[in-house]
């Protein structure tokens, strides 16, 4: 059932966003580096929802297509893509008004794993047939 997958994705996006916002605040207090032009409550929430909704569609598609191994393939794919996304904050060029781009990967690299972590964390609550 797509409904279950949808609520799983929605709950994961909320959890990933909350964790991301909390980590963003902790990182700011620890380093005093202000990346609010790039990562703020709005963008963190938006990215979390976008990634988790995309994951919902991919999960549902794989679970429907590969009935036995769909979830295994999805988990593997989600982990690999999350790991590959580490390159995004490392290679991105920030606005020049941000004076400490060296500290940006320290903030953004852990965040790329939050949607996947949230998805896996909440998975037991959404077990059952998703087809």
């Amino acid at each position: 059932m797509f409904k279950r997958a949808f609520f799983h994705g929605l709950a994961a996006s909320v959890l990933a966003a909350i964790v991301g916002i909390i980590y963003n605040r902790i990182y700011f207090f620890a380093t005093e580096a202000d990346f609010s032009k790039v990562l703020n409550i709005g963008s963190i929430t938006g990215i979390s929802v976008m990634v988790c909704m995309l994951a919902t569609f991919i999960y549902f598609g794989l679970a429907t297509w590969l009935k036995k191994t769909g979830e295994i393939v999805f988990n593997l794919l989600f982990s690999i893509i999350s790991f590959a996304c580490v390159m995004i904050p490392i290679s991105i060029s920030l606005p020049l008004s941000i004076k400490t781009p060296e500290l940006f990967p320290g903030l953004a690299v852990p965040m790329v794993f939050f949607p996947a972590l949230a998805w896996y964390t909440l998975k037991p609550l959404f077990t059952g047939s998703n087809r």
Partner: protein
Amino acid sequence: MKKLIYPAAAVALFFASAFTVIKSQDWKIAEGYSIKFDGGDPSGEFGGLKGTISFDANDLANSRFSTSIDVASINTGNGMKNTHAKSEKWFDAAKYPTITFTSSSIAKTASGYAATGTLDMHGVQKPVTIPFTFDGSTFKGSFEVNRMDYNVNTAEPAHGSQKFKVDITVPVSK
């Protein structure tokens, strides 16, 4: 001897006032300046601008720029690129911590002024001419630099851009 006190005071005042006239042409670099470079990839800016600016549109012969920027202040917007730019392979900020420009002459042009002088970068001194304008509170100039002329990573001529457009905006106050 007493008779000489007043003439001496007058002479002293005369020279002191002349000195203040010369000093009044000095400008202090204000906050909000920018030294941006654009080579496509990479692009960015430098900070740490210091130096003396003596400029009088009516006395270009006595006008002079002597400025420097801090190489370690380079910001491309990407931490990895910043680290590379400061490394021995590129600007070698540890060995050459500043880039300096010292003018030797300033001339009036059709669109503003042109400062001719020496650009010292990466241990290489080259003559350059920087066209600029001045509206009474801000200097704006633009010129082109080829990194190969200054031996900046000559081992990799195709790595990134060779030519960079440098845009300078320096607000000043007296």
